[in-house]
């Protein structure tokens, strides 16, 4: 109980509350701008939070992402352009509602169910994380090896991309993680005599490059295409009619939140995939599937709850095992390491007040989302009119300075540029970047636990299955590999046929 009181004191501090308020506004803005994603918001926030104590730093990230995921719904409804990838699943449906004159209702539903879904995700986080941590405290290198494998496999499995390209991205990420001093023998690998590379591929400039710079390059192409037409519709009282939606569709709300929470907690899959899957599930089990795509609110209830609930639960594997649930928590893990609170079960014993603070901030973020979301909806026209030709260069400058700040040298900024080009190249070829990022984050842990386990067992592979939890995780991982292989084999004739 003492730790809870400490957490309250940590969070309800004027500086922390100020940081939360500012990052909420920042998150709303970034989320509402098409082309600027929640992950990008987080990556750009890290350099700013670098010099803060852990609680405001984490508070800024939690708040900004929660707001951004909701705010992505606004341009989806008004412009048919999802503000973040997490809103893409139901952007067409939302826009169809707008065309039918239901913009107000749509935004109200998005806001209220986003808050609801977010709270469900947080509740699961609060309930599960400490319990899991107690189990995880007995884990050895075998369990961590399989957990890392499982996390990385899920990252490939969930991207929906071609598995070959998913694995390629993963291997490249793991390979990047091997740059620098090797964890077993202390030998500098792939450094080419460069002092900066000895410290490894710094993770934050990589993220800024892959998620912001490559996005800027794509955005620059279409910049002179003229401004999109904003639907000229008055937004009325957004909360009217939401109750009438809740009554028939409360099952959808619970189902969407449950699916979102489960997918968020899976390593490697985040809010965007949660939204796609719950939208599909909603259509599959709907009594009136023919209405989907014509501006029907049912699927929106499911998926808008799902993407916000995924945010909270993604922190479960991140905090308990140090395995990111999505690309946002991948950044969070980097931040945790920088703040000296290495994620893992021990953090629950050593720094429980920090964990409780994260929980509190999550609750707080979801509560202030109601008034702030209302304000963002009211001001959406102004936000969407923000000139992108001014925004893009300014973001580039932020990226440069932010990356510079992470290493206090041009190494960070150069790394950012290289990774931006690499990220753009990979995406251009249908190779997803998310597995690469997870590979980069988990690479050291995977290698360390693998080499440790091999040394302990003297090269006997069966030892990886010798402990009950490790064995279960190992079998599960191998089962997923088998499913992927089968899928790939079955797909082959379909690909070959048109040729």
């Amino acid at each position, binding site marked *: 109980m003492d730790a809870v009181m400490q957490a309250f004191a940590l969070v309800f501090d004027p500086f922390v509350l100020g940081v939360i308020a500012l990052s909420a506004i920042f998150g709303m803005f970034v989320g509402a701008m098409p082309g600027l994603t929640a992950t990008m918001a987080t990556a750009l926030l890290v350099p700013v939070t670098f010099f803060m104590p852990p609680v405001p730093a984490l508070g800024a990230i939690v708040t900004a992402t929660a707001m951004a995921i909701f705010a992505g719904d606004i341009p989806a409804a008004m412009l048919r352009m999802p503000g973040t990838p997490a809103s893409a699943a139901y952007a067409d449906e939302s826009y169809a509602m707008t065309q039918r004159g239901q913009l107000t209702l749509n935004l109200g539903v998005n806001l209220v169910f986003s808050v609801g879904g977010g709270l469900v995700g947080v509740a699961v986080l609060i309930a599960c994380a400490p319990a899991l941590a107690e189990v995880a405290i007995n884990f050895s290198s075998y369990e961590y090896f399989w957990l890392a494998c499982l996390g990385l496999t899920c990252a490939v499995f969930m991207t929906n991309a071609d598995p070959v390209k998913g694995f390629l991205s993963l291997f490249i990420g793991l390979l990047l993680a091997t740059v620098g001093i090797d964890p077993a023998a202390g030998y500098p690998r792939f450094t080419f005599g460069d002092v900066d590379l000895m410290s490894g591929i710094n993770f934050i400039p990589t993220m800024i490059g892959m998620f912001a710079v490559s996005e800027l390059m794509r955005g620059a192409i279409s910049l002179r295409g003229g401004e999109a037409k904003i639907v000229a519709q008055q937004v009325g009282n957004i909360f009217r009619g939401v109750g009438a939606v809740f009554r028939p569709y409360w099952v959808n709300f619970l189902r969407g939140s449950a699916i979102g929470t489960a997918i968020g907690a899976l390593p490697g899959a985040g809010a965007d995939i949660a939204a796609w899957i719950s939208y599909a599930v909603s259509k599959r089990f709907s009594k009136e599937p023919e209405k989907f795509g014509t501006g029907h609110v049912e699927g929106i209830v499911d998926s808008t709850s799902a993407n916000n609930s995924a945010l909270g639960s993604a922190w479960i594997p991140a905090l308990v095992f140090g395995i990111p649930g999505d690309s946002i928590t991948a950044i969070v893990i980097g931040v945790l390491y920088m703040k000296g609170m290495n994620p893992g079960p021990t953090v629950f014993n050593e720094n429980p007040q920090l964990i409780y603070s994260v929980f509190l901030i999550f609750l707080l973020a979801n509560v202030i989302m109601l008034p702030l979301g209302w304000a963002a909806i009211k001001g959406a026209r102004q936000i969407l009119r923000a000139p992108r030709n001014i925004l893009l260069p300014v973001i580039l400058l932020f*990226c440069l300075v932010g990356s510079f700040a992470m290493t206090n040298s041009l190494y960070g900024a150069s790394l950012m540029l290289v990774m931006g080009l690499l990220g753009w190249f990979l995406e251009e070829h249908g190779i997803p970047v998310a597995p690469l990022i997870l590979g980069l984050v988990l690479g050291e842990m995977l290698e360390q636990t693998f080499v440790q386990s091999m040394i302990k067992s003297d090269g006997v592979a069966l030892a990886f299955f010798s402990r009950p939890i490790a064995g279960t995780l190992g079998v599960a991982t191998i089962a997923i590999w088998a499913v992927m292989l089968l899928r790939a084999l079955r797909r082959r004739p379909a690909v070959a046929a048109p040729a």
Partner: protein
Amino acid sequence: MRLSDTILGILLLALAGWVWWLTTFFPAFPGQDYGPNLFPRILAAGIGICAVLLVLRGLRSGGGMMAVDGWVRNPRQLLSFLAIPAGAVFYLLVSEPLGFIPTAFLLLLVLFLWFGTRLVVALPVAAGMTLLVNWFFGGLMRVPLPRGLLDPFL
């Protein structure tokens, strides 16, 4: 601009081979079977397998070696695209000798103008944003932004 699966696969195969070749220079530790070269080799092998699959798939489906999107042929759009990395390169090259404030101001001003902002707007916004970033990162967060030319005045 998109390379075909065949070309992409060959490039990746070369990458895998290069990584493997580099690992042959890693020292071995007597009595220690699992040294620093084990993990990179596994990864190189993984990349190699994926690359071979890509090459096979590319050969089977045929098609051109490279696909070029419409925007690449439009010089304005191509230059807009290149402006982002070029801006970053400019910053990397001149920020140390010139200092942060002049570099950032020039970078913003040129990009604003290129992307079609009027000079009356671009000048004050570039100056304002430069000073804001300098104050926030340089002053508040104590990032050692290069002072360059302005060193005597700061």
